């Protein structure tokens, strides 16, 4: 059975409102210490990018 990873909404540290998840991006590691387990053939990790609908503040986290 497939397991779906559900993450909570990110909260803007300035406005305390829920941020909008607008992008997922493959981010390449710069060395062995940052090797990406998410998609080994692509050699990177997938990061989520979020923006605050009120002030525009941007934040990211590992997907």
């Amino acid at each position, binding site marked *: 059975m497939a397991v779906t990873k559900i993450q909570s909404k990110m909260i803007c540290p300035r406005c305390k409102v829920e941020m909008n998840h*607008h992008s997922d*991006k493959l981010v390449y590691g710069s060395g062995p210490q940052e090797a990406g387990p998410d998609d080994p053939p692509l050699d990177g990790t997938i990061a989520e990018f979020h923006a605050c609908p009120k002030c*525009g503040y941007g*934040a990211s986290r590992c997907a």
Partner: protein
Amino acid sequence: MEATRPLFIPVILGTARMGRMSLHAARLLTSEVSKRAGVETELIDIARLPLPTDDAGPAIKDPGFSARMDRADALIIVSPEYNHGYSGLLKHVLDSCLQEYIHKAVGIAGVSAGPFGGVRVVQNVLPVMRELGLVTIFWDVNFSTVQKVFDEKGTLLDQAFLPRIDKFLKELIWMAKTLRQGREQISID
């Protein structure tokens, strides 16, 4: 969304070379952006950023540059050609950030002493913009034979550049507004 929040579109001067004529082009673009209602701007000179050269990438992120990239809705990059490419220092600076750029617009201005106006550096920088998460527009500004476009004090001698810059900025501002709406209101989920 705060409807009154102005757009922020900084201009990045992508060369530290002595005697750079690109400075005049960057100042002209900054001046033209500053005339747009609802848009704020600032000239960022990469020669003045305190980035170390004994490491690279996010590890050397400058808080001031990062904050400006985070605030930005779009970027304008002004670059001369260095052997058909862009300067290593510009790449070093751009690589110090990533999340700050995602889903933001970018327009490129090429500068050259010859007749091609930096078209080769523009082509070379495009794939880097894409990987950084920036969205390129289809208008460029090409300052060819730049020594004839500006005098030594930076005064614009060729007024034909003003309507070209107008087209470039209209497209960039449209893209900046559209992408802000998308970043802040449209979920990927």
